[in-house]
């Protein structure tokens, strides 16, 4: 397990333990539990990434995650044309012009594009850029002969990935 993984695992586990509360909270806002879990996971993801940029919270992380999830829900609901149900005691929060969230959203789309990669490529890129594993370790893990082979493969995968992202961009533009 890498350092990064170790760091995040504990806090993720703790926060995930409070998932039922978040689910109930989102349900108040009219979100069904399946969508809620997806949004919750997304919010968690956003949270740990924000942590890496040096986020300092003055509240319990769960509140940050919860509010992020709510925000995601409202965006999604708005896009789907759904009516947002404001629960009693809450006010409709102002639509924050959340730059960070927008960026994350963009990256999410990139993630989706990358799913077009073959498994080996995907793993390679994720291990390298995501977990910061060394080429030697990656080569072992994926089953490539050595780190040099892995490196060469990385470039190929990068190229392929870029093409996919471009394709997605064009699709979006055409829409």
């Amino acid at each position, binding site marked *: 397990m890498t350092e990064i*993984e170790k760091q*995040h*695992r504990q806090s*993720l*586990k703790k926060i*995930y*333990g409070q*998932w039922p509360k978040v689910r109930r909270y989102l349900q108040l806002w009219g979100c069904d539990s399946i969508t809620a*879990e997806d949004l919750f*996971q997304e919010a*968690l*993801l956003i949270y*740990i*990434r924000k942590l890496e940029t040096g986020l300092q919270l003055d509240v319990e992380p769960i509140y940050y995650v919860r509010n992020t999830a709510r925000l995601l829900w409202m965006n999604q609901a708005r896009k789907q044309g759904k009516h947002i149900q404001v629960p009693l005691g809450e006010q409709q929060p102002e639509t924050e012009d959340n730059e960070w969230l927008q960026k994350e959203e*963009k*990256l*999410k789309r*990139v*993630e989706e*594009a*990358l799913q077009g990669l073959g498994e080996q490529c*995907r793993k390679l*890129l*994720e*291990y*390298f*850029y*995501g*977990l910061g594993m060394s080429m030697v370790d990656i080569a072992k893990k994926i089953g490539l002969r050595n780190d040099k082979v892995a490196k060469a493969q*990385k*470039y190929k995968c*990068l*190229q392929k*990935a*870029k093409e996919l*992202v*471009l394709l997605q961009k064009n699709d979006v533009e055409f829409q």
Partner: protein
Amino acid sequence: MENWNQLIERYLQNELSAEARQAFESEMNKNEALRQELELHQLVQQGAKRAAQRMLVKNTASTYHLMRKVYVGSAVTITLVAASLITWMILKGGGESEQNRQNQTEQSPVFQAANTEKAFKNLAVELLTWQGMDSVFLTKGGTLLAVPEGCLLKEGKPYQGQAVISWQEATRAADIMQAGLSTTSGDRLLETQGMFSFKAYTPEGAELKLSETKGIYVQVPVSEYKKDMQLFNGQALPNGQIDWVNPVPLEKVPVPVDMSMLHFYPPGYERHLDQEKWKTDKKSRDSLYLSFEQEGGAELIVNDLKAVPTGENSEPFASANQAMRTSEEIFTDNRYREIKPGLIEVTTYIYAPEYLLYKEGSFGVSLPDPKKGRIVGEQTVKGYNNQMKVNGEDFSYYTTNFSITYRVMIPQQETTINLPILFNGTQADIRSGRNVTLKTYREQMNMLITPYKDQQPETDDFRGIRPSLVLAFWQPKMNGTILATREFEARMKAIHATCNPQVLKHYLNSLNEPLWKTDEKVAKMGYPQFNSFAAERVGALQKESAYVEMLAEFLTNAQKTLHEKALDDIRIHEKLNAEITRKYREDAQQNQIDNEQRKSGLLQQEYKYNLADVARQLGKTVGFQIHGGGTIVNIDKYVMDATVSRTTTEITDPETGKKAKITYNAFGLTVKNPESFDQLYMYLLPQELNSFHRIDPKGKRFDYPLNGTIRYHLAVIGVNAQGYFLYTAEQIAQKEFGNITLTKISEAEFRKQLEQLNQSRNPQAESIIPELDWLRTEQKYQVHLLRQREIMAFRSRLFPLIYPCGLYEWGYTPVADPLVK
């Protein structure tokens, strides 16, 4: 473009030297395409990173969900242990053959084998030849050995052919000792009623094994039937001794009995009918029993049994409190539930014998020792009051069932409370059901708080075993099944007491099962009293499964048919009664009309008579015209008034000043024992008029002013279910007659006397016959009513015998209670 891949990568990874980096950055400033490529590259990197981080989140999610689903318990699998050496079975068909022993020469291979391989070393071997078919042997020791076809295996396969059985038995103490046999199982000492060894060989001497599924049947003569005898398997120990292991309980074989010899009526039913000296033939008693059939779910015998959860008490509270009751005793049955710890709500049902009906009073509950518990709040007494329509009129009869609902607070450490029932403040002489045992309840604390929900004998909540269900199986067709045995007869009594048709259905549905199995099933349903039946370990009477299915269908149809027929009969009976009432009512109405007509006719007659009398007194001529309608002259009016009011009146002729008088004298009498009659009438038959008066009593008296110039015959008539009662007097003087007694006479005499009386007063008298006919109708109706009341009373006495639990749940509905928070 492709080289940029590497370049960009190295740039981003900081793998370029300072100069190279500078060159790259300046190139980027110039080159838009490079910038874009860089951006793209970065996007990919960040996307990949994000994907990896997403994986972390996903893993956390998986772990979270997985931990919540971890199984706490695991299913218990029970493996059946294979049967021991000798199994108990019923012989299938096959004729009984005589002892089939042949003497084998000592040199024969079988004998050699048998002798060397015998289990009991020092005991003689008996050799029996088996021809391969179902056979029965009687051994020297008096043991019956039934060896069915297919019970022997040669090398694992069923052996068909001749075999030689090597049999050893040691039933007498001397034999056991001589054989050096041990009577120990491990280190436990056994009391034995016999030790047996069964071995079989082919004529060539090859050993045969007993099949584990099809065994032989061994019937051992014993001097006494000992309880808890078990069958042990003999295991040869290395030292040559035999250790007895794997005990299996013996099954008792049920004895088939002809259905005509068995009795499945509810307990007390027949005895009660004997006491009432009712008809003794089975047909009548069956018919009477069936007449108590209740409407509702026609039970189908097959396929509607819900799976009984094993090991669970699906009827949490009835178990402790079911018992049989007879018609003589007051019996109580308790149901209870714990509202909150220490606060119990109890409903005590009281089934009392009839004599209590005539005692005025009330039931109550009290706890004498406040330390043991105290009653909280009100006690609600409910009477099970049966209301029926008899002949169209409401008829109440009280069955002798009550319930008292009350709440008791008891200290936590108490586990049993005694609930004495008081009648009129003193402890009633009651044989009560078992005490409310809280320990049992507390052990079942995980069960639902409201006990009544789980226990649903039928979907319509009916508590009772309908006669059609019993009569359906009580038929010669069921001879030879487990139902036609004394053993089942004994169980039927207990089944009646449960009031739960599901219990009966279990037996009806398990015709081929050992009886003890069904006993156990029923005990698990919540009737532990059936455990004692199960302990008897009565086996099965098996039939062909196709035949059993046919029987099951037969049962279903029989029950349905009986049920429908019973209800039809009831309806027809009700219709007939309704018809009788309707006819009576019609006649009564007609009589009313006739009566009114007669009264107005009589009034006219008496008015005319009085008018003539007055005319005479006033010296008017007889040709006095009286007109109907038009204006009545003053004198007419006075006369009419006097006649109507039957009061003495003096009339003065305004023209002449002469006076005339109409006299009415008081007349009255009382009848002895007026309440013994259902109808009582006084008839006054005037000589001078054609019609007659019929007077109804007011209270206990008959009063009617008599016309001073008219002579009357008197008849007082009483009618009840017993017959006619009459008093007559001729030419009565007007006075107070006092108290008269009516004499019973026959109907013929009654009519005769009255007609004579009528005729003698005035040959032109209006016929009294329609009135007599009406009286006859009345009398007959009273007879009918009495009969109906007797029938109802009779049935109400029988009812609690047939439905000892009172048909339906008494409908406890929990109400919000300020005591309970």
